[in-house]
């Protein structure tokens, strides 16, 4: 099934892209997909600063199971204000 992945801030630079649509196995957890993405993007794998994530515009647990058309976002620790 397909999901959308969005990248922000320095994570966007590390990933070398702003967004992509990727194919993931049914039943995949957020954490497993982040692991998969890191395996394909060395910039993200080598990243030293923390990596945060959100699913469909909400913070979530890494164990959360993905659904078709979900929007997964990866980004640095926030620094608004």
């Amino acid at each position, binding site marked *: 099934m397909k999901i959308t992945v969005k990248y922000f*801030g320095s994570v966007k630079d590390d990933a070398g892209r702003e967004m992509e649509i990727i194919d993931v196995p049914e039943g995949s957890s957020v954490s497993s997909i982040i692991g998969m993405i890191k395996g394909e993007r060395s910039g993200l794998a080598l990243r030293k600063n923390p990596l945060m994530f959100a699913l469909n*515009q909400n*913070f979530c647990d890494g164990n959360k199971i993905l659904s078709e058309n979900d929007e997964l*976002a990866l980004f*640095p620790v*926030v*620094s*608004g204000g």
Partner: protein
Amino acid sequence: MIRIQEEPLDLEELIQATRNTEAGAIVTFQGTVRKYSGSMEVTSLIYESYKEMALNVIQTIVDEAKDKFGVLEVNVLHRIGTVNIKEDSVAISVSSAHRKEAFKACEYIIDSIKEKVPIWKKDVKPGGEAKWRD
């Protein structure tokens, strides 16, 4: 109103929207760009947001603050893109019947925004080089 925008923030409009016939107090916070990031000099900051999520998170924070402190009106503006020294990156205005609640709610909202809202900033140094503040 809750807005994330590239245009400079209009404080006048923000404060007008916060006025209320039952309010005895309005407290407004502006985050302004200062010429130092730690000990390093900067000429501006560049802000980027995950806009749809940022708006949702700010709305949740505003609802929490209204609930917690019983304030009357709350309005929030956050700027993205390039923000120069002395300009506002964020502005929050809160009205309440009595002043204690407005101060508390306003401080709660900016503390929560800094902690939870998906917005990031880059320091722009005098030479023009820009570096994410992670």
